[in-house]
């Protein structure tokens, strides 16, 4: 430990050279086994460097050194390179990936650290450096620092955003619990649930909650339980403990699993004072497992009361409505206006019937007109084809028809004129015209023959006499 560190390099009364040289250099020997006087021994740079390295590695096999980190860089080999400095000196440093793995925090520039390791030499550059086995931040503990760093990173990523927080379900069908079966947490949770709500359905996913691999196990358990049908909310947590005990809940995999959960997650880690990364990532943080259980079932109580109140309001609304209505019915039936109202109602009904009929008629008419038009169009369509085919014939026909018509008309005119003339002549020949002048026509009784000869009748015969206006029946009283 530090006793090694306390030994000043310069005071090393080291007479010890490499065994091979011991024989060849009997004279004064300096600390690095170089003879200055006798048998001038010339070393190659490499030889010297190797000696320096061996010497330093042996002397400073395990040292603790404190300083400020700067020039921190992780190469793609996974090794960490840095410089450690104080007000007046610098020390190059290196930490292999294998050692780096165990650091909880991330080394960054400006961090004040204590490094443990051995001093060695990087031959290609002739530089000595500390090969670091472990780094520990000064001031804050390593875990504390790791916590702060992860918190800052996830915060920047938005994992803790208030907008991401989901409300707890009013009535979870099943409550998921991710915790250890050994701890007090699971019993606390079940006890509260049992006391508050007898008919609760709980699914527990037992998991390690501390030690190596706990974080990965919790994360896995979370991802698994949120897929169980009807699990509407999950409580993840454990009872109180030291920072190291609670550490799994400060690790990234747990925070990630909480953040991607499709259902709300209640974190319940340790006692009130310990806020974990899991708490920050969860939708709701409960200070203890019992409190988480109360949060879940308190909602159920609330909801029951809420439903009861709603139901009461519903029923009282309906009651009030019915009362109002029945009062109104009473009022109305007591009034004479009601009779008038009935009549008006009947009239309105009739008017409505009429309107309906009118409307129906109008619709029917409109429909009929349309269907007629349709038929016309159809007919025209039919004719169209035929007409096209017979177009020429029709033209001829029309021409002939025209001529025929002309001829017929001319003939008719002529016939009509002739008829007029004949009618005039007929008129003058009519016996009626003679009668008008005072003549009369005598007919036999049967009116079959005009009597032209007195010998054709005998006394006592009945004859008929046609006059210009009217006719007479007469008896022959004698032949003259």
């Amino acid at each position, binding site marked *: 430990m530090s006793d090694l560190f306390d030994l000043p390099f310069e005071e090393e009364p080291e007479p010890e050279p490499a065994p091979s040289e011991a024989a060849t250099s009997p004279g004064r020997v300096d600390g690095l086994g170089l003879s200055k006087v006798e048998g001038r021994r010339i070393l190659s740079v490499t030889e010297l460097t190797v000696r320096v390295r061996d010497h330093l590695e042996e002397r400073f096999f395990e040292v603790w050194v404190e300083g400020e980190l700067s020039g921190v860089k992780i190469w793609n080999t996974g090794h960490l390179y840095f410089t450690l400095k104080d007000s007046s000196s610098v020390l190059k440093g290196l930490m292999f990936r294998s050692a780096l793995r165990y650091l909880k925090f991330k080394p960054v520039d400006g961090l004040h650290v204590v490094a443990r390791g051995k001093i060695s030499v990087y031959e290609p550059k002739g530089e000595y450096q500390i090969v670091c086995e472990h780094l520990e931040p000064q001031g804050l503990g390593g875990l504390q620092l790791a916590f702060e760093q992860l918190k800052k990173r996830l915060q920047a990523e938005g994992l803790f955003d208030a907008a991401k927080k989901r409300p707890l*379900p009013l009535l979870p069908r099943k409550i998921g619990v991710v915790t250890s079966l050994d701890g007090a947490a*699971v019993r606390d949770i*079940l006890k509260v649930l049992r006391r508050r709500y007898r*008919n609760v359905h709980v699914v527990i996913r037992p998991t390690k909650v501390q030690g190596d691999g706990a974080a990965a196990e919790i994360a896995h358990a979370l991802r698994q339980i949120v897929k169980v049908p009807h699990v509407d909310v999950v409580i993840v947590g454990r009872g109180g403990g030291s920072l190291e005990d609670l550490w799994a809940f400060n690790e990234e995999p747990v925070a990630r699993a909480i953040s991607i959960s499709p259902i709300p997650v209640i974190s319940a880690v340790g006692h009130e004072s310990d806020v974990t990364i899991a708490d920050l990532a969860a939708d709701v943080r409960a200070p203890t497992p019992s409190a988480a259980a109360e949060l879940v079932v308190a909602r159920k109580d609330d909801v029951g009361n809420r439903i009861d109140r709603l139901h009461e309001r519903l029923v009282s609304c309906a009651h009030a409505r019915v009362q109002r209505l029945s009062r109104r019915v009473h009022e109305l039936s007591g009034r004479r206006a009601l009779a008038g109202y009935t009549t008006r109602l009947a009239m309105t009904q009739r008017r409505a019937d009429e309107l309906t009929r009118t409307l129906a008629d109008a619709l029917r008419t409109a429909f009929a007109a349309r269907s007629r038009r349709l038929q016309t169009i159809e007919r025209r369509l039919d004719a169209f084809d035929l007409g096209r085919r017979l177009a020429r014939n029709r033209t001829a026909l029309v021409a002939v028809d025209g001529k025929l018509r002309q001829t017929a008309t001319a003939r008719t005119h002529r016939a009509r004129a002739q008829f007029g003339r004949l009618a005039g002549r007929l008129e003058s020949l009519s016996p009626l015209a003679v009668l008008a002048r005072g003549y009369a026509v005598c007919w036999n009784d049967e009116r079959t023959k005009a009597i032209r000869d007195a010998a054709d009748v005998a006394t006592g015969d009945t004859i008929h006499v046609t006059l210009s206006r009217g006719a007479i029946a007469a008896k022959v009283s004698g032949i003259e």
Partner: protein
Amino acid sequence: MSEPSIKDFEAAIAELESIVKKLEDGDLSLEQSLALYERGVTLSKFCHARLEDAERRIELLSERGELRPAPAGLAGDDPTR
């Protein structure tokens, strides 16, 4: 789940609340009020049923994703307060 038109518990409560509010505000025809009232009663029954229908069950989920009943000791048969 008895009522297919009720999506879930929270939706049912929300609907019940809005129905009560509408009824209290009045200004509805008798038919509307009656329809709302009927719906409200259905919802309220559904919610009550949902509150009481689950039975107390404690199950353990194994790493392989299997569910089995939790041992009696765990389920809290110890003295209750």
